[in-house]
């Protein structure tokens, strides 16, 4: 519980209706999408303006109180988990789109704006906002900036950082700074580039200038059924080797297909490896390339190839893919979501090794991946009611991450390190690498008040606990699919 003077100061800063201190209301904020970690914050504030955020952060700085900023709380790595007894700054009320500039291809938004709303806002003029995390119908731009969110289409279009031109940031001292600019290459260090993806540890973004992109002339989506995910993976390699850059390349294995079918009836072919290829661009080019994709799929033994014939059919294909995570709940009582990255060429060996590792401990692993950029989402299925199985599943999910690192990859492609993978970061980076990152942290936040005890490994004594997947409240309510 926070000291009454601090509560009074926070109330002064954000008003009575901007402050939450009641225990039952605080519970809403005790976790994000990684629901097995829960911490009750001391208070939650809901500022409406940059000035209010500054006032709150200054109070925190004065009292050396940790604070955690938070958008929609859809993150899967515990990045928005409150700090014990600290303040949660919810940006939900700062949800205005402030400016749209079509001549210069940018929009300026507040952090609480929902990702999909940006695209909707500029759709009439033929533009869209490219990063599309699967939670895009509910997740916020502020959260995307913190996590450097990707999505299925980042293969071609890039990540949040590629599309963030400028930021207004409240530093952990309360000072307001402007990083980057809508005009390129502002003189000085690229602090906007460093801030994006820093998981809330360097300050609070209060205004974000985003690049918007012209919607492509045509989009074509193709499904190809193979006997194995390896054959689908080889087709991905062949497509890339042919010099093509599709806007999405996704693979699902049997278990994932089964789950998706059960959930949304996407009419996927029943197969060992399903490949989804999306090409976009000028009509003349896309049609020619799609012919090549088809030929490459046939060469690798695709026995069914289907090109979506309508926008509805295309939407259904994507719905199945995007529902795959949550759908796994239909074929297993519990599961853990992981987010490793490997070099694309390591895919066959890594898949075989995951299968072997799973067989040894008698568990099933469903695989869904953004195959174009080697981003795997292994879903470790288990049953919590069987004694000891949860621990085995957790251990397996960790060893899969280590396998990704050992294969030359990364422990996270889009979910972030957060609370969940702090220790794994220490497996991926050596001490000098982490110490160098800390120099940046210390320059921005010498007191370690912004989202403390996240991202970086804690003392070696603490073991990491990756999360068994429990549905996010939004997911249970049917408002969102979480990936």
């Amino acid at each position, binding site marked *: 519980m926070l000291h009454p003077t601090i509560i009074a100061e926070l109330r002064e800063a954000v008003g009575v209706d901007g402050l939450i201190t009641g225990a039952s209301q605080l519970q809403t904020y005790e976790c994000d999408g990684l629901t097995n970690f829960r911490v009750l914050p001391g208070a939650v504030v809901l500022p409406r303006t940059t000035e209010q955020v500054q006032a709150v952060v200054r109070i925190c700085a004065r009292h050396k109180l940790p604070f955690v900023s938070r958008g929609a709380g859809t993150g899967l790595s515990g990045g928005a988990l409150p700090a014990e007894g600290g303040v949660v700054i919810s940006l939900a009320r700062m949800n205005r789109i402030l400016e749209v500039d079509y001549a210069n291809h940018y929009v300026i938004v507040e952090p609480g704006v929902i990702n999909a709303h940006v695209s909707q806002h500029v759709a009439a003029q033929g533009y869209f906002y490219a990063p599309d995390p699967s939670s895009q119908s509910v997740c916020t731009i502020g959260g995307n900036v913190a996590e450097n969110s990707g999505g299925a289409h980042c293969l071609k279009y890039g990540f949040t950082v590629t599309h963030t031109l400028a930021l207004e940031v409240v530093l952990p001292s309360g000072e307001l700074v402007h990083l980057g600019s809508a*005009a390129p290459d*502002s003189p000085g*260090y690229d602090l906007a580039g460093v801030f994006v993806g820093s998981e809330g540890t360097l300050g609070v973004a209060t205004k974000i200038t985003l690049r918007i992109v012209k919607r492509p002339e045509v989009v074509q989506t193709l499904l190809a059924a193979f006997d194995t995910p390896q054959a689908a993976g080889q087709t991905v390699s062949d497509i890339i080797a042919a010099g093509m850059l599709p806007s999405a390349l996704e693979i699902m294995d049997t278990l994932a297909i089964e789950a998706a079918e059960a959930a949304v009836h996407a009419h996927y072919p029943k197969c060992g490896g399903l490949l989804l290829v999306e090409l976009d661009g000028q009509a*003349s080019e896309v049609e020619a390339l799609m012919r090549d994709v088809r030929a490459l799929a046939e060469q690798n033994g695709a026995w069914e190839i289907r090109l979506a014939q309508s926008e509805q059919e295309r939407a259904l294909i994507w719905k199945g893919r995007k529902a795959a995570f949550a759908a796994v709940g239909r074929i297993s009582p519990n599961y853990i979501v992981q987010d490793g*990255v490997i*070099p694309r060429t390591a895919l066959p060996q890594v898949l075989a090794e995951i299968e072997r590792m799973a067989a040894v401990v008698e568990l099933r692993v469903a695989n869904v991946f953004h195959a174009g950029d080697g981003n795997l989402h292994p879903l470790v299925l288990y049953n919590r009611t069987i004694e000891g199985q949860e621990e085995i599943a957790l251990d397996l999910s960790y060893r899969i991450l280590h396998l990704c690192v050992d294969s030359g990859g990364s422990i996270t492609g889009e979910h972030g390190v957060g609370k969940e993978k702090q220790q794994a970061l220490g497996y991926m980076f050596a001490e*000098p690498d982490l110490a160098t990152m800390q120099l940046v942290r*210390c320059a921005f936040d010498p007191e370690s008040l912004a989202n403390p005890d996240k991202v970086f490994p804690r003392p070696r004594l603490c073991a990491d606990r990756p999360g068994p997947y429990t549905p996010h409240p939004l997911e249970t309510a049917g408002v969102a699919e979480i990936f």
Partner: protein
Amino acid sequence: MSTAELTLDEGLARLAAIAGQAHARIRGETVEVAPADARETAAILRFAQENGLAVTPAGGGTKTCWGNPVEAQIRLSLERMSAVREHSWQDMTCTVEAGCPWAAMQTQLARHGQTVALDPLWPERATVGGVVAANDSGALRLKYGALRDLIIGMTIVLADGTVAKTGGKVVKNVAGYDLHKLMTGSFGTLGVITEVNFRLHPAEERTQTWTANAGDAAEFAEPLRALLDSQMVPSAVQLRVGKDGCALDVRVAGRGEAIEDCARRLSKIFSEIGMVPSSEAVWGARQELYDAANATILKASMLPAEVCPVSAELRHWATTEGAGVQCVAYPFGLMTLALQAAPPAAFLVQLRARLRPTGGSVVVLAASDEMRAGLDVWGCDADALGLMREIKRRFDPNRILNPGRFVGNI
């Protein structure tokens, strides 16, 4: 190297002990040393730090005049670290040592039809490390993005000798801070880049360039807006402005049918001005500005929609003042200006005042010593300058790495 404690010869001996006799020598008041790897680089920096010696990392020496002059006692040459260490062509990534000349790297990558999709200045001589440290980029940025978006990892050596890796060898990776973004464009003030990992693109096999000519850049404003608002994806677009008139070049890459399709679309967009096929040689325009002797070169950054109006204003100014001005501008908002004679002091002040309200800037890259002496070449007015200084203080507390070269005398 005449510090109180160390003579030039003593410094040479110590550095030769690290990198070998053959790789250390005296040049004027500086010891030039060429380490073989990151470990030797670290040893040199530790030695410099212990003795309070300033170090300037050096590649091909093509952009040494960018930024404020540095008086360094040690010139740390990356020339021995010049290998393409790894080209995972199926993964479309590569790892290259910082001293590798840009063109040499591209030749190697071209064996598998791939490229780092960036067209920097002086590609034959400029090194990977130098291009990255100076954040140079050319016309291809329109389609492929800024240099920092092509870099997926790095090895750097800090002032205290720490050898750190950042990022990795995969394109998608959000583990830890992206220190390589901080290093890109930091002008060697935070650490020495020894190795860079890039994401690669397929090399453009078939391209076609078209050019439109007009008397005034303002005539291009509407067709250029229409082009950028269209669903075409040109790989490069540039505006050239000189005393004889203005030209707009567009390059498209793709298959035959796609190129023909683009030709039809372009002729529609540029129906009033007219657009004709031209030569790939036009893309050397930015380089030509730098190659002209004794020119003052400015890099101006502006909003994309300002490119045509600002070009027109500059040409008008040049005509009125009788000044020789040439510009090459890219539609994402970067313009290189070459002035034949040093411009009056008021010129820079006015141009900065014109661009700043919309977030633009002007950096003086090449200028006579007299001109430099009286001005701030960077013109950085960021409210984050204090934060930048703090980052420098944390990375290089004794200010041994390119002291004073960067914004705010960092």
